[in-house]
């Protein structure tokens, strides 16, 4: 890795380049292809119609997450559509010889939780999955992006994608996070600052003291929401935190292989001489816990702030802001703290890992969910659930009046029975506050950290979690 001006992104991209295509795109080899039930049945069908087979079944791994009920229901599921999708995936992976982490395996979970957890996700890899939150895997120093179903077909057939090379923006987060301020608050602040379309055409490299001080699970949260800022891909350079986290995981290299891999992982990280298309410094000192108030993740404020007024917004943002406040039923200029909630959801590929649950349990311990609030905790994977139960976190949540569920995507996008009803307001640790996102066409989502969700559940309204810690 002699060229010191190259970033990790450049090195990984160049290494995986098969050839340049006539239109200027790159034919990029995909080192790891993760698949799930929702975006793949049509791709396997198209493959059959083209008379093709899965080219690298050993580099393809499957799980189920989006449509699973989380209330312990067993097959066949009550929803015939959900049952049909799982049956299709089972048939497809069996025919192609693809390893499948189903519920019986003990390793099932949200695809972006189990990839890193099993050590499948490693630094220097290219990773694709038919899901926009594939950017999550960048936390380990991989170049990972979400793709559509036709592109899933491309990867199944060729283990390659045709992609336009993005530019690279380094986002350097300085300062120190206060107590009660988490990775979720950092990424929401980044999206608020750069906008929901600011990252289109870019890969984001997250760096600086705040990112370096984060544990792996916090970095996963940051990279997860890159797509919410418009960036298809976001990553953190691998370091000792990464290596320590990977060691001993099921699919991570072992013994001397691990040492060899670690040497390579160190080499590919961006050095001080790396060149970027853009650099953005962000000072996280004094950052407050964030709460979204609108219908896209960029529409968020610190919990100690008041909601913006459309007349103060830039002219091009005014209409969006008015639409957002009207949909949410919130008053311009009002404080966000104190907003009543109906539902509290702790889960999703953004914030359903062990450390997320620990922080939420710290708040919930000894408390009681406010009357009239429906609260649920949905661990990101079966392994997260096991680890949390071993620590007694499930008991803490249950004692406080939370529902403790089984692993899946659940109320993040409500493809399963977990959903909002009518205009319910949900304090949610997920990633998207789009209109109707949580299953009710008029449902309302307030994005925040898991600890903030737990605090809102206890008080029945949006509250600064720092008051409870």
């Amino acid at each position: 890795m002699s060229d010191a001006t190259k970033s990790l992104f450049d090195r990984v991209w160049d290494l995986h380049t098969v050839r340049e295509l006539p239109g200027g795109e790159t034919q990029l080899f995909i080192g790891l292809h993760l698949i799930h039930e929702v975006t793949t049945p049509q791709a396997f069908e198209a493959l059959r119609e083209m008379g093709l087979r899965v080219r690298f079944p050993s580099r393809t791994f499957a799980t189920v997450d989006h449509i699973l009920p989380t209330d312990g229901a067993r097959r066949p599921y009550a929803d015939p559509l959900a049952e049909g999708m799982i049956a299709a995936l089972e048939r497809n992976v069996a025919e192609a010889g693809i390893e499948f982490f189903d519920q019986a395996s003990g390793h099932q979970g949200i695809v972006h939780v189990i990839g890193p957890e099993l050590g499948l996700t490693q630094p220097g890899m290219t990773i694709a999955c038919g899901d926009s939150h594939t950017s999550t895997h960048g936390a380990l120093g991989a170049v990972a992006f979400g793709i559509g179903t036709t592109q899933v077909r491309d990867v199944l057939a060729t283990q390659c994608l045709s992609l336009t090379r993005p530019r690279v923006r380094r986002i350097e987060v300085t300062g120190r996070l206060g107590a009660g301020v988490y990775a979720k608050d950092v990424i929401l602040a980044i999206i608020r600052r750069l906008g929901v379309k600011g990252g289109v055409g870019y890969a984001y490299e997250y760096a600086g003291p705040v990112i370096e001080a984060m544990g792996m699970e916090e970095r996963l949260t940051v990279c997860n929401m890159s797509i919410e800022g418009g960036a298809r891909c976001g990553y953190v350079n691998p370091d000792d935190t990464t290596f320590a986290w990977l060691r001993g995981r099921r699919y991570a290299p072992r013994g001397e292989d691990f040492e060899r891999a670690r040497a390579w992982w160190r080499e590919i990280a961006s050095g001080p001489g790396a060149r970027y298309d853009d650099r953005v410094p962000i000072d996280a000192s004094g950052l407050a816990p964030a709460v979204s108030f609108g219908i896209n993740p960029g529409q968020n404020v610190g919990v100690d702030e008041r909601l913006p007024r459309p007349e103060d917004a830039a002219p091009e943002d005014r209409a969006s802001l008015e639409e957002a406040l009207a949909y949410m039923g919130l008053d311009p200029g009002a404080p966000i703290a104190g907003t009543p909630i109906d539902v509290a959801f702790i889960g999703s590929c953004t914030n359903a890992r062990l450390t997320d649950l620990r922080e939420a349990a710290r708040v919930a311990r000894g408390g009681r969910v406010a009357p009239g609030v429906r609260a649920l905790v949905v661990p990101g994977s079966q392994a997260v659930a096991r680890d949390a139960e071993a620590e007694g976190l499930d008991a803490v949540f249950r004692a406080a009046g939370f529902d403790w569920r089984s692993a899946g995507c659940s109320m993040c996008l409500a493809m399963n029975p977990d959903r909002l009803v009518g205009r319910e307001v949900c304090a949610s640790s997920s990633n998207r506050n789009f209109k109707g996102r949580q299953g009710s066409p008029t449902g309302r989502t307030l994005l925040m950290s898991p600890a903030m969700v737990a605090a809102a559940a206890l008080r029945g309204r949006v509250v600064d979690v720092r008051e409870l810690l």
Partner: protein
Amino acid sequence: MRAGEASKGVERVAGRACVLRGDDVDTDRIIPARYLRIVSFEGLGEHAFADDREQAKGNHPLDDARFAGASLLVVGRNFGCGSSREHAPQALMRRGFRAFLGGSFAEIFAGNCTALGLPAATLEPRDLTALMDAVDLEPAREVVLDLAAMTVTSRAGTAPVRMPAGARQQLLAGTWNATAVLLEAGGAIEKTAARLPYL
């Protein structure tokens, strides 16, 4: 389609247009997640913008009789943001749309459009406003997107449009079936795999 089979190129999309104003229209709105519980894309067209249309009670552009039969959809900035679900352009395609004109498009959405042979072209803000107003004023008037000339012609006159060069070339040449193109690399794929330290 069999591997290697070429499609006919898309040089021109002409027809009536439908105007859908507003920025950051996400794919959850284009096709709500509950309609994704299917193993094919068939029948998605009727669910396009299902919740928005329900709430608009007949006043949604997709239900506006003036825009009936439109084959071009004119949208704002960052259209198709959010989820990677190809169900979004699939639903719009199955509703009859053959091209998208807008301020900007989210990256995964734009890629999904190209994969389906649907152009997603952008206009300068002033030209976009003029196009939207022109279509609103006289919806029956034909709008023509010309990918060879990279222009859109409407009642408002002819304005330049932009598209990523690669996507444009694939559409013009009818080579948007990327699987066929990628397969042409042959053994170079395995050769690339062989030099990866982790495989």
